[in-house]
């Protein structure tokens, strides 16, 4: 039961792309380090976030194409139904 709850929490917060979550953590850490060193830090988050989004989209698009050779006729559990982010 605990394992199921932990998995549910992980899926709710992190979702299906853990690399994006790690990227967000690294972005905030880099911002904190730059700010602590009195360097301009505001530009790090927008650039890093857009890079994370771009690679996440490319990775998922590529995965969908590799799985069945084309895109939309490749339904996955999160395409429809209850639960999962958005």
């Amino acid at each position, binding site marked *: 039961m605990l394992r199921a709850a932990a998995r549910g929490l992980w899926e*709710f*917060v*992190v*979702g*299906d*792309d853990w690399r*994006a*979550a790690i990227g*967000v*953590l690294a*972005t*905030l*850490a880099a*911002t*904190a380090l*730059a*700010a*602590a060193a009195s360097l*301009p*830090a*505001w530009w*790090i*988050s*927008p650039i890093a*976030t*857009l890079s*994370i*989004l*771009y690679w*996440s*989209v490319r990775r*998922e*698009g590529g995965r*969908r*194409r590799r799985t069945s*050779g*084309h*895109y*939309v006729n490749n*339904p996955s559990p*999160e*395409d*429809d*139904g*209850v*639960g999962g*982010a*958005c």
Partner: protein
Amino acid sequence: MSGGQASLAISVFLACAVEAVEAFTIVLAVGSTRRWSSALLGVAAATLVLACLIAALGPALTVLPIGVLRVVIGGLLLVFGLQWLRKAILRAAGAKALHDETAAFERESAAARAAGPGDGVDSYSFAISFKAVLLEGLEVAFIVLTFGANQHDVPLAALAAAAAVVVVTIAGLAARAPLARVPENSMKMVVGVLLTTFGIFWGAEGAGASWPGGEAALPALGLLILAASWLMVRELRRDVSAAVLEPS
């Protein structure tokens, strides 16, 4: 109402409306196929759980130091916003199927008919409605709590969420059908942009960065995210078209 409060209300309203449309489809399918009283009981129970969650965690979050609050909430909003945005981009480009409320209604109705008959309180109707509202509502509760706590206005966020539920319910009852014509993906794209924008802003601020122009940087950030998302949709759409023309 300040700009921050307006952004808070719009973000929560849109996010809640999208999730309410999806939950409404399931409750409608179960209620019209089996037993309305049990389905509505499930809705009431899930709403109560969500309200308790917000009432318990809301005040607890607002006592955290603002720096800690912003970096934690900014990070969570970023992770969440990126999920919404990625899926909206994939759907807008045709790389992922759009959420089809009519198909979801048919599927849920067929499953409800196939389930065995229930006596008294129909446990099937109750459980499916409870699960639908709770799972769809958890994301809304998260957005209400994070946005509300950061702006020190959880009641406004909760009010915006409640308004969205009321609007969707009235529209659904008037249509007596799944709300298939609601532009769900466009709304999800807007919510994704808003969550990501606020996530970047609050996360960086909480980590110690200072934004040029302070809160005036927010609209610029939003436009940047929107423009980048549009470019990603265009690029991916080209790939999808190429794949259709030259299937592997």
